[in-house]
């Protein structure tokens, strides 16, 4: 077993400020909880602001400090997202939430990844670690890593700076011997136990773990309790070290919070692009695709607005998804300031190799181009502005067609099975929305001038078994200016109507 522990010491701050465009604008910022500073950015750190200061002291040190309230819910959500990200590397992932604040310090949130199964696929330890680091940097998340044969050991070693330095250049996983050396070298304050125990250890003169391991376990047990012995055994690898296994949710959800609200839909494009890129990475690794992206613009207490982008075909290209999103965002007018942006994809479908849009050379066929066009049109014009037509089996002319969803365009090929055949009679190419009454006077018909019947009648009599009977005699007629019309006489009321035009 090879466990990697990734600690996120800056998570309280980064969960709140990750959405900003630039890396850092140099303004001192700090996150506070229960009147104590829990996290501060480097600019604030230079002004002497540190964890465990009270808010009053911090403000006295730095007057223009921007104080943010800690949001543990957002933090745990971000940790879930990170777990999802980790799941794309290895199936054995375990997120661990931050511990409660104690004397102004708390155990940072971390993520355990079991790497022994994925080394070969990633091309060895060094490329894998570099990739992890690169992607974390892209997400603008500070992380510290440690390798160990058990999660507890990995967690402890991730705090040891010598170990982290070694990890930068590590080419292969260390041997058991090396691990034992690392562990015994560790100062005992890095042990994962409460302050009281650590104080007791130092009182006994135990400054390094090696000194602790030299004492027989039974004596350690009588001094520090069974729990501590258990922890030591897990650290040593002589006992199993279980961690909660993580299962990715069947949907994707990610959000960005803006410390200073946005009032312009163009400003939304940058954070939206970041979310889409995260989504695409996730999807590609899990070999899924999303049919619908749901964007939620959160106006804080003034409600929210949901915008959905539909994708007809599997699409993993972030640029195209961003372009579709842009079309949607351009349509809306922001009346309130946006405080957070959420991206949710509910239905993730497994991807089939044949279904992917781009082939090896990035050429798209006619059909794929038409899907892209449909997506674009749908994004800007809306669903209701687009339609298709299909045939329907009916005697009644107005029911022999139906407006079809554009989805039938997507099927690409003809559907198998029963196929409706059009009637074998001349039918007009234009149909009126509803039949237009024609004036009849002295056995003559008038519609924009006199019209003459050329052919007919063709009797269509249907639905006599229902309440509303349709009995009509259809004729082809010619108007004064040469237009050909499709008219009928309702046999029950004897009135004349125009229903179609032979255009």
């Amino acid at each position, binding site marked *: 077993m090879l466990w990697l522990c990734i600690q996120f010491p800056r998570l309280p701050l980064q969960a709140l400020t990750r959405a900003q465009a630039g890396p850092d604008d140099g303004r001192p910022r700090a996150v506070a909880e229960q009147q104590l500073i829990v996290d501060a950015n480097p600019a604030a750190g230079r002004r002497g602001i540190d964890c465990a200061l009270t808010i009053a002291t911090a403000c006295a040190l730095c007057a223009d400090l921007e104080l943010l309230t800690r949001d543990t819910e957002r933090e745990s959500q971000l940790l879930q997202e990170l777990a999802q990200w980790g799941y794309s590397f290895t199936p054995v992932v375990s997120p661990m939430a931050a511990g409660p604040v104690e004397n102004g310090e708390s155990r940072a949130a971390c993520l355990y990844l079991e790497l022994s199964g994925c080394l070969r696929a990633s091309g060895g330890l060094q490329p894998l670690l570099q990739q992890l680091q690169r992607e974390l940097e892209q997400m603008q998340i500070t992380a510290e890593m440690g390798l160990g044969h058990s999660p507890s050991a990995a967690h402890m070693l991730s705090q040891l700076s010598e170990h982290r330095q070694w990890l930068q250049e590590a080419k292969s996983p260390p041997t058991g011997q090396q691990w034992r050396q690392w562990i015994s070298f560790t100062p005992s304050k890095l042990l994962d136990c409460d302050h009281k125990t650590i104080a007791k250890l130092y009182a006994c003169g135990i400054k390094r773990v090696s000194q602790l391991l030299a004492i027989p376990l039974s004596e350690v047990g009588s001094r520090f309790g069974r729990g501590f012995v258990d922890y030591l055994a897990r650290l040593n690898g002589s006992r199993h070290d279980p961690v909660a296994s993580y299962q990715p949710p069947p949907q994707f959800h990610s959000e960005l919070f803006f410390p200073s609200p946005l009032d312009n839909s163009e400003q939304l494009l940058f954070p939206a692009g970041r979310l889409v890129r995260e989504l695409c990475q996730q999807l590609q690794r899990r070999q899924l695709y999303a049919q619908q992206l749901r964007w939620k613009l959160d106006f804080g207490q003034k409600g929210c607005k949901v915008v959905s982008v539909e994708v007809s075909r599997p699409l993993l290209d972030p640029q195209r998804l961003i372009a579709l999103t842009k079309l949607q965002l351009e349509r809306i007018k922001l009346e309130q300031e946006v405080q957070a942006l959420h991206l949710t994809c509910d239905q993730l479908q497994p991807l089939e190799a044949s279904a992917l849009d781009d082939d090896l050379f990035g050429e798209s066929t006619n059909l794929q181009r038409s899907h892209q066009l449909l997506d674009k049109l749908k994004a*800007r014009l809306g669903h209701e502005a687009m339609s298709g037509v299909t045939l329907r089996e009916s005697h009644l002319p107005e029911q022999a067609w139906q407006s079809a969803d554009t989805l039938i365009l997507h099927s690409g090929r003809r559907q198998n099975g029963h196929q409706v055949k059009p009637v074998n009679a001349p039918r007009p190419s234009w149909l009126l929305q509803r039949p237009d009454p024609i004036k009849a006077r002295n056995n003559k018909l008038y519609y924009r001038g006199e019209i003459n019947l050329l052919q007919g009648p063709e009797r269509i009599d249907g639905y006599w078994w229902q309440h509303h009977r349709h009995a009509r005699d259809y004729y082809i007629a010619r108007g004064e200016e040469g237009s050909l019309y499709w008219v009928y006489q309702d046999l029950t009321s004897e009135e004349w109507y125009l229903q179609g035009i032979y255009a």
Partner: protein
Amino acid sequence: MSNAENLFQNKQLDQQARQQRLSQVLRRPDIWQAANEQQRTRHGIASGYPGLDALLTGHGWPRGATTELLVDQSGIGELSLLLPALADMTQREQMVVLINPPFIPYAPALAAAGVRLEKLLILHPRGQRDQLWAMEQTLQSGCCGALLSWQAGPPPADKDLRRLQVAARDGNAVHFHFRPSSSAASPSPAALRLQLASDGEQLVLQLHKQLGGSAGQRLHLARNSDLTRRDRPLH
């Protein structure tokens, strides 16, 4: 010595660049060359009406360009004029898009004419900006065989028409633009302008403008005899 060589090389390069520019200009569809007349003959999309094909320079509807159809009145056979070409396109898996049609395209009639309905898309954009955007996107996409658009609202500006013409060229699509015949007087960048009217029995086409060809001819096209056949009175 080296100076002279340089000069010579420069001259050669200059000549090459000039030649390239010239061939670029000559490739434009609106430049007519007598020498290339033979190659150009089979350029258009067959309209399905031999009489009309004979009148048009490309022996069919101009490809990658706007064709303006000036019509005031529906029912004179303006859509059946296009149906054979549209049916052919849909059977070759190309999309046909209708923007703002004045009535409902009646599926049984279209299917009977050979149009594959699943390749037909009808759009009703709101507002002129959305309409122009949809037209341009559709023409540019490269998957659209033909775009039929009906002018709704104020006449589009000259620069918009020009943009549509360019978009049609980029996407190699045929753009059929239905406009009222009152706009015949105003100039248009369209490659072909046809006025459609009826003489009571037949459809009358008048060529107003044709790029690389002559204009002014008139053509009478008979309506489908199935429609105009007069039944004998029953008594």
